[in-house]
């Protein structure tokens, strides 16, 4: 083999390795989706989505309360985490090398790596023990704690991508820093920031351990935010570990609903971004 052939062979091998790795990642995703759909699609109908759970063996059990509970807790988490995360990102972007910024960035990175169970325990001590009750509020707070660092770090990244020449144009025109951030930098980074928020929501929607420690679960409809609350992940977990075939099947169905909801949210965000881009 001469030098040229060797070079070609190497680059060919490299291509193949990359292709296979990409394919493996895709394959795992599709396998998971395939299983969830195959095992879960059968139970899904309107009453499954809207009914309360029933005891083992009683037909007609649904996940209505878990669906509502998840939506509300993820909603609370998002409402708390999005403004907080974006505000922190703006701070980090404006004071890149200040000590507080470096410390904040470090803390956010560490926080993304903290096991969610620990976050759950933290909120458990902070809220559940104090108020004496598991609640949707505590669950939402735990999710927010998990979402903030994800949103902060991704939003800062996106703000940084906005070229300084644009900021200078705005400042040179007489805009204040605040106006420059609100009217130019944030709108220019909306797309990337939205993607980061979606990622955080997807992450939050699937959390089990912190929800179990803060909202526990419930077999009834949610009446107020201060009581134990059902959620999809906890329902999936508790049904899946039982030996009962009908509950196991409902767990698969709930898993399918969860995946589809996260997927729909992503599509909605893409459409939102596309619509914004057209607006220009």
């Amino acid at each position, binding site marked *: 083999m001469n030098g040229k052939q060797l070079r070609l062979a190497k680059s060919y091998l490299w291509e193949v390795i990359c292709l296979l790795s990409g394919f493996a990642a895709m394959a795992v995703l599709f396998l998971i989706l395939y299983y969830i759909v195959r095992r879960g699609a059968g139970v899904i109908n309107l009453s499954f989505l809207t009914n309360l759970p029933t005891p083992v063996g009683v037909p007609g059990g649904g996940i209505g309360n878990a669906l509502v509970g998840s939506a509300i807790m993820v909603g609370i988490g998002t409402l708390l985490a999005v403004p907080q995360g974006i505000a922190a990102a703006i701070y980090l972007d404006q004071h890149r090398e200040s000590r507080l910024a470096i410390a904040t960035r470090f803390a956010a990175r560490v926080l993304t790596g903290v096991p969610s169970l620990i976050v759950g325990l933290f909120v458990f001590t902070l809220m559940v023990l104090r108020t004496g009750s598991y609640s949707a509020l505590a669950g939402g707070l735990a999710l927010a704690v998990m979402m903030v660092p994800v949103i902060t770090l991704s939003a800062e990244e996106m703000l940084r991508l906005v070229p300084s020449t644009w900021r*200078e*144009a*705005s400042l*040179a*025109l*007489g*805009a204040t820093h605040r106006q420059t951030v609100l009217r*130019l930098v944030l709108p*220019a980074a909306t797309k990337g920031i939205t993607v980061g928020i979606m990622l955080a929501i997807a992450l939050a929607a699937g959390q089990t351990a912190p929800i179990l420690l803060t909202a526990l679960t419930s077999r009834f409809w949610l009446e107020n935010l201060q009581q134990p609350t059902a959620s999809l992940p906890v329902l999936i977990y508790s049904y899946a570990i039982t030996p009962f075939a009908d509950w196991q099947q409902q767990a698969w169905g709930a898993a399918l609903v969860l995946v589809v909801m996260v997927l729909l949210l992503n599509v909605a965000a893409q459409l939102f971004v596309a619509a914004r881009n057209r607006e*220009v």
Partner: protein
Amino acid sequence: MAESVTVENLSFWFGKQQVLKDVSLSAQAREVTALIGPSGCGKTTLLRCINRLYRLYSGASITGKITVGTENVLDPHIDQVELRRRVGMIFQKPNPFPHLSIFENVAAGIRLHGLAQGREVAERVESCLKKVALWEEVKDRLDRPGTMLSIGQQQRLCLARTLAVEPRVFLMDEPCASLDPVSTMRIEELIRELHKEYTVIIVTHNMQQAARISQQTAFVLNGEVVEVGRTAEMFVRTRDERTEAYLTGKMG
């Protein structure tokens, strides 16, 4: 409308590195003053002192005095927003706002400073686009993004955007550096028009350009203004041998 700009004993440091050394320079109203000099000599920095855009840099320190009209720009209590409305800036790389339409790019400053309302905004935008000879080219697509124009058109859009807030002084940092010869000619024509109403300070690497458009030329070297004079005289007979060397291409 135009206001003169006077720089007195200006020194500027990035951290410990002194970038401007005791610079004094006076730009008359309704004249074009060209700043020339080798790369890295401090021309951009000098320009950015005048509208205080240097404050963006961390570790910058400054001494001396800069007067625009009658106001000392370096006074920490000065209204920076008002200063930057009076002193407009054009950059080397055209930088229209990417998320705004052609129309909104020009309207941005008008809205920002509340200079007009309702129908008046559109009239002002139109008149500014006409002044920079862009109106005919864009009047049918005012709602398209400003960034879809050619680079030369973008630079004229930026000029219109700055014109719209009625500045007294134009600072231009190599405004033609990224343009083709035809676009450059058009910008030069505009500058020749502009100086009748405004004070223009322009950085350029192009000696012929300085000769074509400016009345006064300052030669900057290593952070010092080594020679200032009427452009017509300076290019015929320089007094400083360093300027001479630069102009004849022996340096820079």
